[in-house]
């Protein structure tokens, strides 16, 4: 955005609609409150008083119908996999998915076991993988910023035409 400093007062800015929409979307990424396992605790801490992910416009929603972002925080078991898919399907477009932690990235530690899904990307598309077991709140915040960057790069109106 830049101001038309030659012709208009400096309180005016010009931009294109795509950028304006993206600015709004990226600054209000509401995430689904969805703690599956260990990472869920770090997700809570990220929303907590110190890391305070609220600063980036991200607040938890309890229902998928109001969420833009799904943070898959923890181990997805085979029993849970279909439910994760169901939750993802309930979210309105456009939607983004962060896979948080080794378990949802690739099965992680539980690759040895029999009941764990080896990566949540087998059931839903993932935009960003955050490594760690569990990732620190700083890492998750960085992940969120990267998703915001991705949103800024999108041409939402152009794509729909």
């Amino acid at each position, binding site marked *: 955005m830049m101001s038309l400093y030659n012709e208009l007062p400096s309180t005016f800015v010009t931009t294109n609609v795509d950028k304006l929409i993206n600015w709004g979307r990226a600054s209000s990424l509401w995430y689904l409150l969805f703690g599956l396992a260990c990472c869920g605790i770090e997700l809570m801490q990220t929303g907590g008083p110190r890391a305070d992910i609220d600063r980036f416009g991200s607040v938890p929603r309890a229902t998928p119908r109001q969420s833009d972002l799904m943070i898959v925080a923890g181990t997805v078991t*085979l029993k849970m996999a279909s439910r994760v898919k169901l939750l993802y399907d309930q979210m309105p477009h456009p939607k983004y998915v962060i896979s948080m932690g080794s378990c949802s990235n*690739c*099965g992680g530690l539980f690759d040895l*076991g029999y*009941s764990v899904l*080896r990566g949540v990307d*087998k059931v839903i598309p993932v935009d960003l993988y955050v490594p760690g077991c569990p990732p620190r709140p700083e890492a998750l915040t960085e992940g969120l910023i990267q998703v915001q960057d991705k949103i800024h790069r999108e041409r939402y109106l152009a794509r729909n035409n």
Partner: protein
Amino acid sequence: MNAEAIHQTLKKRFPDGVGELHTETIDPWIEVQPEHIADVCRFCKEDEALGFDFLSNLTGVDAHNDLLVVYHLYAYGKRHSAVLKVRVPKGKPVTKTVTTVWRTANWFERECYDLLGVRFEGHPDLRRLLLPDDWEGHPLRKEYMFPTEYGGIDNTRDYGF
């Protein structure tokens, strides 16, 4: 009471149902016949000298051709503990339920059925507890083969190393 005294009390009351006391392990254990386990446990709980009011743990162990169901009992009043074991053949793993003695046994037995396939006669609701209902096999048996697919989801992953 120590393990010998507990064993003698039980042996006196159930000469057929109660087997030898095994002292070669750190926690000595008493073998009980599967058809007598419910009566032995009831006696353990109701006898004043024994007073085992708390079923601390109930689980199963794969013992090659057999399955062992292990009961860890504890008495809050007397502050003593005992270990009972029931041996059932893998081909026909049937024993009696102790849910009528301790209500906490309900879930323990369901878990044991789920993971090892021991069937507890008289259990009010013997379904799988942890794994989905359509799961095949009992994972804690040694011969169990890990599934590569569940519910249409391919669960293999090539890590590239």
